[in-house]
């Protein structure tokens, strides 16, 4: 009889545990529209736009060919913009994201490289805007790509050489190939804070959607379960402690105060000494984020030269 009660209680608990994620998942039945627009293979607009007019015609033609070639191989749109306009950091981000959407549309698979050649006194600021599957694939590699490109690109105030710019764009295309990371297909996801959308793969298909990825829900559930178990344990221990003996009456209560007197009560200074320790300072890096005025979801990052 008792063992039957225990078994039925255990079954009830297990069923509750199994029902919990289903119940909670239904609460997250947000808009599940998939906004991913993919890549249609049209490389007509995959070019280098030389607003600075620093490249020769030959160089520009060669780069356009290369860009189209990489675009077809990687199945992503690629656009390189050589800017002659000085913008603030935020303006650069918005400009790059908006330009990408103007050329290739929202949430398509592609990359736009904004190279700041404005020679502004307050420093050059480059930006790589990613869209679609590129948000996921290059999420962890933007800084590395920029660091590698610094070899080719001039710092603020240095002379800009056309050959160096050509080499930089060519190298950039190579890095796109080198860092196209498809291992994120299984568990990775990116959350675009500005639009609130998530970018992830599910069953081999790319999703750009408001619905949270399964792995994130699982992470949430595990964290919530741990919190719940900790609270359950604290509750159990607190209640159990109430079923133990209370502290006995303190012995100090039996002191007869008016019959207690101090014969000696002295605090004599002996010595003083001082120590010091050095405070270690630390410096941190910074990283850019994404954001623009359009409706698409972008990733990427910026870099000061």
């Amino acid at each position, binding site marked *: 009889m008792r063992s039957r009660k225990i078994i039925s209680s255990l079954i009830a*608990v297990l069923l509750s545990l199994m029902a919990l994620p289903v119940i909670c998942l239904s609460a997250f039945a947000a808009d599940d529209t998939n906004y991913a627009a993919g890549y249609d293979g049209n490389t007509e607009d995959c070019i280098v736009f030389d607003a600075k007019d620093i490249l020769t015609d030959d160089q520009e033609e060669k780069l356009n060919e290369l860009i189209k070639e990489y675009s077809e191989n990687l199945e992503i749109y690629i656009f390189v913009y050589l800017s002659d306009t000085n913008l603030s950091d935020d303006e650069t981000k918005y400009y790059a994201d908006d330009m990408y959407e103007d050329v290739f549309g929202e949430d398509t698979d592609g990359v736009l490289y904004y190279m700041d050649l404005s020679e502004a006194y307050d420093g050059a600021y480059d930006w790589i805007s990613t869209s679609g599957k590129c948000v996921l694939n290059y999420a962890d590699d933007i800084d590395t790509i920029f660091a590698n490109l610094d070899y080719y690109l001039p710092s603020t105030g240095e002379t800009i050489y056309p050959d160096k710019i050509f080499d930089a764009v060519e190298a950039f295309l190579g890095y796109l190939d080198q860092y196209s990371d498809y291992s994120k297909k299984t568990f990775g996801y990116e959350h675009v804070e500005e639009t609130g959308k998530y970018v992830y793969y599910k069953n081999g298909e790319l999703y750009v959607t408001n619905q949270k990825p399964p792995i994130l829900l699982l992470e949430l559930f595990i964290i919530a379960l741990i919190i719940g178990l900790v609270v359950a344990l604290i509750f159990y221990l607190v209640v159990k402690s109430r079923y133990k003996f209370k502290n006995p009456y303190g012995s100090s209560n039996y002191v007869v105060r008016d019959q207690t*007197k101090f014969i000696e009560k002295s605090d004599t200074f002996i010595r003083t000494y001082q120590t010091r320790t050095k405070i270690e300072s630390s410096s941190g890096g910074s990283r850019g984020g994404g954001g623009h005025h359009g409706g698409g979801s972008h990733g990427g990052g910026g870099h000061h030269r």
Partner: protein
Amino acid sequence: MDAVQYKCPNCNAELKFDPDTQRLNCEYCMSSFSVEEVQQICQEAENSIPDQEEENNKEEFEEQTALYHCSSCGAEIMAEANQTATFCYYCHNPVILSGKMGGEYKPDKVIGFKITKEEALIKFKNWVAKRWFVPKEFKSGQQIEKMTGLYVPFWTADCKLKADYQGIGKKVRSWTSGNYRYTETKEFSVRRSADITVGGIPADGESKIDDALMEAIEPFDYSEMKPFSMSYLSGFFADKYDVDKQAVFPRIKTRATSAGKSVINSSISGYSSVSAREENYNILKTDWTYAMLPVWFMTYKYKNKIYEFAINGQTGRLAGTPPLDKGKLRLVSLAVGLAVTAVAFLVGGGKI
């Protein structure tokens, strides 16, 4: 051995001590007498505690037998070795075994019951009601009725201590300047010496009663302590001590030392840390009192384990460990955990 019973001078029924009124009452003719009046009226009973010579003569016999004659019905009943007051199992009248309270076993003082059985039951029920995880059989009326009023033999000690303390006190100050953190430490020699008096530390003199349980129902209000009279025992159980003052002295010493330490420690202040180098607490003198103090007892058996509860018969303070239905607690804890999991999941999901 003859037992003593206090008879009503009006109708000859048994008188019982009433905690509410602190008087002895007759349940038949409703007469009521103060302890002093009974002492005068029932002089024979009061004087039935034998002197030392009689006690010596009877000692051997009494150690070998524990029989008493009930003067109401004449029954011969066996009593436990330490019992000094009980009830006749046949006619249920209260009896006092005065022969066992001679010589060294005669109490000096007594505090009469102030909490009636009904009040004790109410306190116990209220206390249990706050504990949701006791087994429901525990709360049954039948179980709760098994409550016994017992005068427990206590030793109370008044101790004079000499306390000597030597230690090092440190005052620490820190500040930041530039790239450095500075710490300044000042050391002081702390010396204390005091004559400390602790009064009325109780220790129960009965081996079968849990010492911790008796400590948990302290304190007793000694201002209500009266010179011992057997009339207080009528209607209750009572035991004589089987743990003498030498045996309880280590407990008294520990508590007196603890009290002394609290006096010394409370006189040291203003330091970031204090470490004692040498401290001594010597008990110079101990004055003992042997007193009968009132306690309501209840025992409960659950899953082959005995649970004891005690209520201070003067103040109503309750102590004991209730049985815990662990299965019920586990289920409720799990339910709480699941509820928190659901809330945390919903809240966490909403934030991301």
